[in-house]
């Protein structure tokens, strides 16, 4: 009995702790959302009137739609490229055993562990040598590098669930290696490919530091936010922030739903 009581007590402590963490993480976001509809120029209580003025202001601000367009292009391109590279790396890992594989995997997973400032500087130095600094290409390249490991991790997770005989079964039934890739491996990994596209799009869409280093005049949304903030305190930020947050969280939630579904399906299949 004693154990059970302590068990229940610690469960409550844990729940409270998790609730606190969530409040801590989400209250600034929520505050930003609330103030984005508040008519007062400075965020303070009590709230002023409800308004969509800041959203209109953002819409009419030339810099923001431009940045939004850039962000969309960059995140779409780097999601597609990053997912493609991630898929290739994950498949190589699944299919082949070779000397130095651990090193190969280590390198493939390295980018997210590099401090962003270092990554930004290195990218800037390298891309300006290549004459690309300041172009959208530069941001796409940098973001592809940063996105690929996430895509690889997701797709690799899926490939680990594959019946090791599935590919061989397709060959055995007359499918060439390319045909097998098209009609077995890709259909099997499709959920994780979609998840990887969403996740990498979100990663790229949110990424500030490296984009700031290499973007030059072609700014993405996070870079523009910083510039507005540097100028003055402007509630437009709340409006942009809310908008960006909703896009990112949607992509991440879609990713999470796909991953959860595929894991559940896998357990069910066993």
């Amino acid at each position: 009995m004693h154990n059970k009581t302590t068990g229940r007590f610690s469960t409550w402590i844990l729940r409270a702790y998790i609730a606190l963490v969530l409040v801590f993480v989400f209250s600034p976001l929520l505050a930003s959302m609330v103030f984005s509809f508040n008519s007062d120029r400075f965020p303070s209580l009590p709230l002023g009137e409800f308004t969509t003025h800041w959203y209109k202001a953002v819409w009419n601000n030339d810099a923001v739609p431009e940045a939004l367009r850039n962000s969309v292009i960059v995140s779409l391109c780097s999601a597609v490229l990053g997912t493609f590279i991630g898929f290739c790396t994950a498949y190589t890992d699944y299919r082949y055993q070779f000397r130095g594989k651990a090193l190969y995997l280590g390198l493939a997973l390295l980018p997210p562990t590099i401090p962003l400032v270092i990554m930004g500087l290195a990218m800037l130095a390298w891309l300006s040598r290549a004459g690309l600094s300041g172009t959208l290409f530069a941001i796409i390249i940098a973001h592809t590098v940063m996105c690929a490991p996430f895509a690889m991790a997701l797709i690799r997770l899926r490939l680990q669930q594959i019946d090791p005989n599935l590919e061989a079964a397709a060959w055995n039934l007359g499918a060439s290696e390319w045909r097998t890739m098209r009609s077995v491996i890709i259909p099997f990994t499709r959920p994780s490919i979609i998840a990887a596209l969403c996740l990498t799009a979100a990663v790229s869409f949110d990424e500030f530091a490296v984009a700031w280093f290499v973007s030059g005049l072609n700014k993405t949304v996070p870079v523009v936010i910083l510039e507005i903030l540097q100028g003055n305190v402007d509630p437009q930020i709340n409006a942009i922030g809310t908008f960006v947050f909703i896009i990112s969280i949607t992509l991440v939630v879609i990713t999470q739903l796909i991953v959860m579904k595929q894991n559940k399906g896998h357990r069910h299949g066993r």
Partner: protein
Amino acid sequence: MGDDLVVFDSVEKHFGSFTAVRSLDLKIQSGEFVALMGPSGCGKTTTLRMLAGLDTPSAGEIRLNGERINEVPAHRRQTPMVWQSLALFPFLNVRENVEFGLKMLAVPEQERRTRAMDWLDRMEIAQFSERHIEQLSGGQRQRVALARALVTEPSILLLDEPLSALDANLVIRMQGVLTRLQRSLGITFIYVTHSQSEAFAMADRVVIMNEGEIAQVGSSRDIYRNPANRFVAEFVGRNNILNGDVRAQPGQTGHNQRPVPDDCIEVKTSAGTFQAAFNGQPPGNGSAVTLVVGADLASVTAAQPDTSNHVRATVISEEFVGAVVTLFMETDDGTEFKVQLQQRELDKLELETGTGLWVSWDVANTHLIQA
């Protein structure tokens, strides 16, 4: 039965320093049901995979229909396989799984569908054609896997322990399905298994493998009654195996002071001295031999029997499977004896654990293996 469909000619397979298959020679005729049987790691699955083109032989030649196929890629071989894990495509429904092989052969859609449905019908699972694989039971999945492999009308079907995941009742049913299927199609089945009952129940010919080599090829009866070596005798189980050396030739005086009969020799083992029949040239005195007596060919009596092969042993334990009882017994020197008898015969003996009994067997039923 016809010509040799499959020929393994001195085939070897090494994985690094490990030899999975060594100098394998085997001919399989078309229309034959062959079982490859052996303990895990004996090379049976590697042999099957080499035939399917999933592993490449390190040496030797594999011929299919008289043509060397060592270099033919797996997808051009037409050697469909039923996998232990079934390896059904989880993202396709039942019908699409069966259609897969036809699609690879570029069979038009209408015909594909008709042929797939025919096979599903034949396997009695047509009503599940639009279901997902995970909605089927184990036995139904098995049938899908069979239909998927057979829909292209191959001349050979490879089966890699296909029944090992099913429960015992279903195994018996699927054995019936497989045997009937093989008979009606008249194609070659090569069936890899570690299960003796599966191999013996279905195969025309059983190939026993051990450590990458063939230990014996023969009918179920041959392998059961006339094991070629000690490994086969032990692997088949339910055999009493006695090691010893030859002490007397036909006509010489035996241990019971009587002359040894014409077609017999006398062998001294740790459990006693016994007589065994031989074919051809008898092994000379002093040569090491092994005697094998099937547990079902030995009998037990309370009184000392008058036959030349008998030994006193104590019952250690009993095992009941239906009306058949296996007595596990031990002689004074620690040699184990297994005797199989009917329940009703056991009832007559009225024995208790620890009872001493006489185990005896015919000289003619004593199988001699020359080491």
